């Protein structure tokens, strides 16, 4: 391989990374990007989870007083605002926390399906991030896979007796990371490479995400640990009361 090629490849990588994390919203699958078939499939796959989530929320509201509804709504607005804050970054590019890990630990995975779906609708209509035809796919990765992974890791490591900071860090970082792995899977299922098919396509998308998402996932993990420590120090009572909605 010639010198010129090395040079071209490195220019390419620099160009791609310049375009890349304009913001983390850039990873919502944009409106109309998925072919009609896949947009439909993800909608169909997402709906049973949403129905169960709504059932869970309804049961919680019915069992308790109406104050739970306010709490749930504030939790939803909190997640929306969280995802519009800038995440500190070493490279200088701006990005936003997903709030998936924190939300799943604080509010539980089932309410997160419903709240996440609402937040994604608002992000599409009010901020122009994501879309309606791709809502199914985005809900599946960001409001179903992400929260359940984060919550699962949190419960598992608590049971194993791992230190709390490590548990929260892993839940938030892996919740963030696996959301994007899911997005990569969705994109490569819809656009398999001509040679090598799904796997080749997945390698390409994962390669792009690895550069951008791994540092972001680690930052989100760190910030979530700090938030969790602050909350535990100053607001233990509120956290206990909150545990009823999950």
């Amino acid at each position: 391989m010639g010198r010129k090629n090395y040079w071209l490849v490195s220019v390419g990588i620099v160009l791609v990374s310049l375009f890349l994390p304009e913001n983390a919203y850039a990873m919502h699958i944009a409106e109309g990007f998925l072919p009609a078939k896949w947009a439909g499939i993800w909608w169909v796959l997402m709906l049973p989870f949403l129905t169960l989530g709504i059932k869970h929320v309804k049961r919680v509201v019915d069992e308790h007083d109406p104050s739970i509804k306010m709490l749930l709504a504030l939790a939803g607005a909190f997640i929306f605002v969280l995802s519009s804050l800038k995440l500190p970054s070493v490279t200088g590019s701006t990005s936003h926390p997903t709030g998936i890990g924190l939300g799943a630990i604080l509010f539980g995975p089932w309410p997160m399906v419903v709240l996440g779906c609402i937040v994604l609708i608002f992000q599409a209509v009010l901020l122009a991030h994501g879309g309606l035809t791709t809502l199914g796919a985005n809900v599946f990765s960001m409001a179903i896979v992400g929260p359940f992974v984060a919550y699962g890791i949190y419960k598992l490591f608590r049971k194993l007796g791992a230190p709390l900071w490590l548990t929260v860090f892993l839940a938030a970082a892996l919740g963030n990371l696996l959301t994007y792995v899911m997005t990569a899977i969705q994109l490569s299922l819809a656009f398999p490479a001509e040679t090598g098919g799904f796997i080749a396509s997945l390698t390409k998308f994962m390669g792009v995400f690895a550069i951008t998402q791994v540092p972001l996932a680690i930052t989100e993990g760190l910030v979530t640990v700090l938030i969790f420590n602050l909350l535990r120090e100053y607001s233990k009572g509120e956290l206990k009361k909150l545990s009823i909605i999950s």
Partner: protein
Amino acid sequence: MLDIDQYAYSNNLRSIHPVEKTIFALLTMIICLAANSIITSLAIILLMAGVVIFGAKIPRQFFIKLILIPISFLLISTITIVISISKEASSFLYYLSLWGWKIGIQMENIIFAINLFLKSLGTVSCLYFLALTTPMIEIISVLRKLKVPRIFIELMSLIYRFIFVLLDTANLIRTSQLSRLGYSNFKRSCQSLSKLISNLFIRAYYRAKGLLTTLLARGYEGEIRVLEPEYEFSKKNLAIIFLVEVSLILITVYIGGDQFVIINT
């Protein structure tokens, strides 16, 4: 605070029935996605840009700024799809060799990418039409007519109201942190952000409690009832929507549909 939201309340098409606007946006979106043709996508982008800029009287610069939002995602993803890796060089228009592998671009992939890019922008402009002309409250009322579960609708309208309060609080905290050099380096940024978020959380919690108290004092029993503005369907608008959609389908069938295939082969 949220520009799109402000335009949704103050645009020139505000008084049109929200169901009509939703039907128009969604039908066009579905046609764009199903047509899968460069010509139809271009026609839809122009149509929606025209309706938004001249019909709804949204400033041109703002619409262009919105169109640029999904560009970064579209560029990265289409580039990732277009570039293919293989061992043979025969099918490539242009390629680089790297450790015996050929990384390059194929002609048919370029056409595929252009089509994908325009199709996405077409549906995005349909979404923008809906977002810029119809306030969220009216979109929620359309969802209510579609018999979406009540708890979902209720949470949606509550969350919509709370977003602005919390955004305001977050902005205030951030401004005061910034004025004290709270984001001057990476470590400090992490600390400041986590303080902001944990405080925001606690404030949200107490705001929910406060709000509940005020609602209870006004006879709240678990449901907020609001009067919805009444709209009338306009036969003229429905006819226009019907004509536009039919002509889009005709464009697809007679000009656009085969276009892609012809270039491709």
